[in-house]
Each structure stands twice: as C-alpha cells, then as structure tokens.
C-alpha cells in the first residue's frame, strides 16, 4: 500500500521549492501532469510520502513571448498547447512537431513539458527537440533561479542537471529565425516512444544555412548531439553528402541499448537513414519556401 500521506498544492514556485526542501529528500516528489508519476505510483514503482502538486501555480502555465521576441514555455504547459502554438514556427517548429507526436490526444492533454523533461526518458520526444533547437531550461531552487542549456540539462538515463530541491520552471527559446524545424520518429505503433527519433532545426538566410541543430533520440542515455555534425550540415548547406557524413558520425557516437523496441545494432543502422531522410525533407521544404 502507498505511503503517500500528503498532497500539497502551492500557489507559487517559491512555495513549491520550500515544500520540496522541507520534505524528506527523495520521499517528497513534485507532481506535474501525472502522466508518468501517477502511472508509476499506481504500479508501486515509486512510493513518495508527500507530493507537491504544481497544478495551482499560475506562473508555470502557458506560453509567453519574451521581451527579446523569444518564447517562454511554462513548465506546466500541456503537450497539446505546445503542439498547437503557431508561434513555434521556423527554427522552432521542431518543438511543435515533437509535441504533436507524443502518445495520444488524452495524454497530450495531461502531460507537461516540465514533467516530461524532468523525467528525462531518452526515448521521449521533447529531449532531442530541445537540444536541436538549442533551448535553455529555467530552474528554480532554494538559491533562486538559474538557466541551463538543454544540451547540458540531460546528463544520463533519466538523470538531469537538476540539483536537490530544484525544479524546472520553464523552457526558454531564442527568437525564431526563418528556416525550418522538423521532428521524425521511427516507432512500433503511433504514439509509442521512439525507436529512433531525429530532431532538426535549421536557420536559413539568403540561400545559406546560418545554423543547423540536429539531435537523435532513443539511442543512448541522453539526446545524441555533435557540434561537428551540426557544423558539417551548416557548411554543406544541408546537402546529401553532408547529411550522409553527419548520420555516420552520429551512428558512430551512439550508445543505444537492446530493448523491447529494437536492438542496439538495428538502431545504429537506422540513424544514418533517418538523418538522411530528415535532411532530404528539409532540402525539399526549403526549395519550395526559401
């Protein structure tokens, strides 16, 4: 039987952090949308003594525009909202596409971006998308707020840069640039976690690639990303040769597991194909729109 004794519903981030810090370490957990934590609670995989629900914290809700034109996605923003936000266009479309591919409409209506990335399942859809878009994660803790690049936030299997008594408050995105973002995943059935996923964000200006971000999900402890692959794609203007080389580099750097979805060897074989497919689609889109 569950040991859960209390459920707090603070109204502010500061209060949530205080409750977290005042609790009994791992026995006090944050509750966001519940899509993962309540499922684990039901299955007896976690046994917290106290939960701090973030449902009543207004600051964590919704997507806002920052003074510099960038976007701030509150940690409690549901996947459904992210999947529908037209401001996530151009280089930032990768995030909208990833959100639209999570699970099913009901889970997208419950699950939150903060909860998802804090759980940090490397086969989940947001981690590679945030890495490709070079987003930052805003974190609150007893010492106040700090920012961590998404590329440093995911550190290992189900492990993040969050310290004790810290929580994710928002995702911060630089202003969108003209170009494109895309997210593709290979799956057993629609809505499942990825076997391999490829997230791409490309800034394109005057027929040249100003910036490319490419990340692979489902193939190791954290989203797979190589500065060298991004630079190859940028310098090679997303060409077929650059795509092939980037795919090979990523496959060589991947550290996938054999699991119920696919073998590690299969994943390594598929990475270059998925990368080439994503880049071919990107070239096609740019030739039509740019």
């Amino acid at each position, binding site marked *: 039987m569950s040991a859960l004794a209390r459920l707090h*519903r603070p109204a502010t981030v500061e209060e949530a952090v205080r409750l977290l810090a005042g609790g009994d370490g791992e026995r006090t957990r944050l509750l966001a949308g519940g899509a993962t934590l309540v499922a684990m609670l039901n299955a007896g995989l976690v046994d917290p003594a106290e939960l701090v629900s973030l449902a009543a914290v207004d600051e964590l809700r919704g997507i806002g525009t920052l003074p510099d034109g960038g976007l701030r996605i509150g940690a409690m923003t549901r996947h459904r909202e992210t999947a529908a936000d037209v401001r996530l266009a151009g280089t930032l479309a990768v995030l909208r596409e990833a959100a639209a591919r999570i699970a099913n409409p009901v889970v997208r209506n419950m699950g939150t971006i903060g909860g998802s990335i804090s759980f940090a399942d490397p086969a989940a859809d947001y981690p590679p998308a945030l890495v490709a878009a070079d987003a930052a994660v805003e974190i609150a803790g007893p010492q106040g707020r700090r920012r961590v690049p998404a590329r440093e936030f995911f550190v290992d299997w189900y492990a993040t840069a969050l310290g004790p008594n810290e929580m994710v408050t928002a995702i911060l995105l630089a202003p969108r640039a003209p170009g494109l973002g895309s997210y593709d995943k290979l799956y057993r059935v629609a809505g499942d976690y990825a076997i391999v996923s490829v997230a791409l964000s490309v800034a394109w200006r005057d027929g040249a690639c100003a910036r490319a971000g490419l990340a692979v999900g489902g193939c190791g402890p954290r989203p797979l990303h190589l500065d060298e692959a991004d630079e190859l794609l940028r310098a090679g203007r997303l060409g077929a040769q650059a795509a092939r080389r980037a795919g090979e580099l990523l496959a060589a750097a991947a550290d996938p597991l054999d699991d119920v979805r696919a073998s590690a060897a299969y994943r390594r074989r598929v990475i270059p194909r998925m990368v080439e497919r994503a880049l071919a689609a990107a070239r096609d889109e740019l030739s039509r729109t740019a």
Partner: protein
Amino acid sequence: MNPKLHSVLTINGERRDVLAPASATLLDALRSVLGLTGTKRGCNHGVCGACTVLLDGKLARACLTLAADVGERAVVTIEGIGGNGGLSPVQRALVEHGAIQCGFCTPGVVIALSELFARDPRPDRGAIRGALSGNLCRCSGYAKIVEAAERLAGEAR
C-alpha cells in the same frame, strides 16, 4: 500512515464529498467511493483509455489524476453524458450502428467522441480516428466505432 484526505469534487454537476487515501486516483474515487462504475479500470497507467473522463471539458485519464489534485475542475463521467437517463447523440449513434462488442471500452470511447463532437460537429474520418487514437478496443471493433461516428458527423452536414 496513509491517512485519508477529504476532497470536494464537482462530478456531473453535483458537489460530492470524497474521503480517500492520498494516493487514490480520480478513478478509485469514482468507482470505489462514489459507486460510479461506468468509468472502467483497464490498464491503470494511462494507455487503454477505458477510464477517460472530462475535466473542465477536456479529456483526461481518471487513472492518472489524483483525486486530491482535481481541485476546482468539473468532472464529467459517462454517467453525466446522457442526462435524464436518455442517450446522448454519440451514444445513440454507437447503439444504432452496433459499434459495441464487449462494451468495456465504450465509456471511454463515448467520452472521447463527445469531446470531439463538442469542438467539431462534422469531423472527417481522419479527425475521428485521431480522436479515438487513445482508446483501445480489445475486441478490435474499431471499424464500426469509426463508422458510427462518421454517420453522426454526416447527420450534422
């Protein structure tokens, strides 16, 4: 250990007192505390869709929602869909087109389709299939469920 928490939930328009363990889900509260057993417990981890309810008009899994975390959100269960004991148009369409086999998934299907028709009275096949993508039918009776929804959409045209 495991004290019960008191919550006041708004369920199908009525305020209801719920006394349940802190770990009780909305699904536990509906079925075991309030006797509203129309909402089904299938997988209990958010995959099958049998426990789907509306929270403030939006789809939610009752099994992934803690009863004590529902707060002020209004809950609508399958018992609240028809009103006055009658059938809703979605329910009538499913009955008329034989879109029910064992019936275990049906409450969740009705809720999912009700939410769809509330925002789009004339959904096409793609929208219907998308709306049902979070509901598993172990009898694999999908074809008739989709057809029933298409007929209902056709009547609105």
